[in-house]
């Protein structure tokens, strides 16, 4: 019990003093996971929309792949990305291994099936007749999809939260492709694992409290956007 109290105390001290190293770790976490989330939205929302609205041969296979991707273990993603990025790998010439770039790639691969899967579900729960009505209003295909996305904006914000939540909290892939290098690739989760293994429980708890606070604040922001136009 004492350890936890110590940890929380330490978290406050780190925050109050604006500990430089801690801030840098938190910042890198936000940059890596934020970038990966944004990239996953750029790919996942169009992919999910197509899967939710279009009919084409092999659609079910792609949908099942996306659904599998939603549950892909980060360590497996980390392993695959490592295989591609290591010095002799297919993409080794990019020299991305053990860099934030590698972590963004891995986290993007974790997040985009989640975003695509949520988007797919959001589009499919809309009344199919709404699509006919919007089409009947004489809008183009792209405008129609845009209107449907607007209709599905509440579940789509859930997609953003789920995607971000999955990557800010994952540790396996970041550890494997980033290696927890101080000042370079250390993020909140890998730092927590590191401190824990060194026996610095208090610091690990402090970092955990700060990580939870970050997740809470980002989610709060997204929730406020999501519920902004909610009719009372």
């Amino acid at each position, binding site marked *: 019990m004492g350890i936890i109290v110590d940890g929380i105390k330490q978290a406050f001290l780190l925050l109050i003093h604006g500990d430089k190293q801690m801030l840098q770790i938190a910042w890198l976490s936000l940059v890596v996971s934020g970038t990966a989330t944004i990239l996953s939205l750029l790919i996942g929302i169009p992919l999910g929309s197509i899967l939710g609205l279009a009919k084409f041969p092999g659609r079910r296979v792609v949908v099942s792949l996306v659904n599998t991707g939603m549950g892909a273990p980060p360590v497996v993603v980390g392993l695959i990305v490592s295989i591609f990025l290591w010095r002799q790998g297919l993409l080794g010439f990019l020299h991305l291994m053990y860099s934030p770039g590698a972590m963004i790639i891995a986290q993007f691969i974790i997040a985009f099936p989640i975003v695509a899967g949520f988007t797919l579900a959001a589009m499919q729960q809309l*009344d199919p007749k709404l699509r006919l009505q*919007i*089409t009947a209003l*004489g809008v*183009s295909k792209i405008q129609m999809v845009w209107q449907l996305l*607007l209709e599905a904006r509440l579940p789509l914000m859930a997609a953003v939260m789920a995607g971000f939540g999955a990557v800010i909290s994952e540790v396996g892939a970041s550890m494997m492709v980033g290696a927890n290098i101080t000042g370079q690739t250390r993020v909140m989760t890998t730092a927590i694992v590191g401190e824990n293994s060194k026996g610095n429980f208090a610091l690990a708890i402090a970092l955990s409290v700060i990580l939870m606070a970050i997740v809470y604040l980002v989610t709060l922001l997204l929730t406020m956007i999501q519920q902004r136009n909610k009719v009372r």
Partner: protein
Amino acid sequence: MNPMQTKAVPPALEANNLAVKLGGKQVLNIAELQVNKNEVLVIIGPNGSGKTTLLLSLALLIKPASGTITYQGYASSKNTATLELRRKLAVVFQEPLLLNTTVWNNITLGLRARKLPVEEIKARTEKWLARFGIADLAQRQAKTLSGGEAKRVSLARAFALQPDVLFLDEPFNGVDSPTRQALMEDFGSVLRETNVTTVMVTHDRSEALMMAHRVIVLINGNIRQMGTPPQVFSNPVDEEVANFVEAGNIMHGVVSSQSEGQALVDVGGLRLDVVSNLSAGAKVTMFLHDDDITISLPAAQTQLSSARNHYTGKISKIFPTGSQIRVTVDCGIPMVALITKRSWEELSLKIGDTVIVSFKASSIHLIPK
């Protein structure tokens, strides 16, 4: 027919050899169908007869398995861009299907998509909001509207597009009776004013009788009969059509006075008590279901009743249908009532007897002519 003449006034829309399959099953088979300019064509038929499928095919929202649909000479096929054709049409569905935004945004969406000038979008939207009596709802969120209000928005949205052809799928379904009556009155007068070519689907025969220039009876995906309402309703081609269309009385009249939603309508010497907001002088078409009329003997006249309309007449015709008898009573105008065989026997009626026909003011459906 002189081919030159048909070319002079081409139909607003034409379907040829139209076949539609849903899940591998053929649900529609239309050899030929023309919708004339400025006419109101009403498609009626029992549930599952393919009415909505026909409507959506004509509105270019369902791809037919084969056949062509032609709009004033423009054929719609898989190769032509349908967007431009679609922008000449408007569709009102059974559900209002409003987007989760303001009423204003709902109505302007199609106009914005057409890239109309901002002033025109504003002018049209304001005009149609006012015309359907919902100007004060402009900034409301669509999902806070009542059923009747949402239907009005949906209708205003369609008329704001100023379509060449307007399609409606059971537009008055799912609202309570007084709301429906008010909605039909407003819609009816807008339809007369705009003269827009209209294709409407309904399972309600009264709507067809009151609104249609021409009626199509669709049964099992086939056009069984096509003609003016009197043609179809008085001379059904076969038993199946007859069973579906024989429903009651259509009457034309003029409102002589109105106060607080109660109106008196003059019909060939009779003065009917009806529920309507139309003002004196309005010409109306009315519909009365045959099973909304009761027949009683003159002796029972003194009995008090909540029915507002009682007329004396002579039985001029009877027609047995199953367990019921369709009785025509001549009250100055013929009134057709549907009564059970047992009532017929218990009242010991026969042709030539004097009887009283009664019905409630609210049983009469009416629209402006």
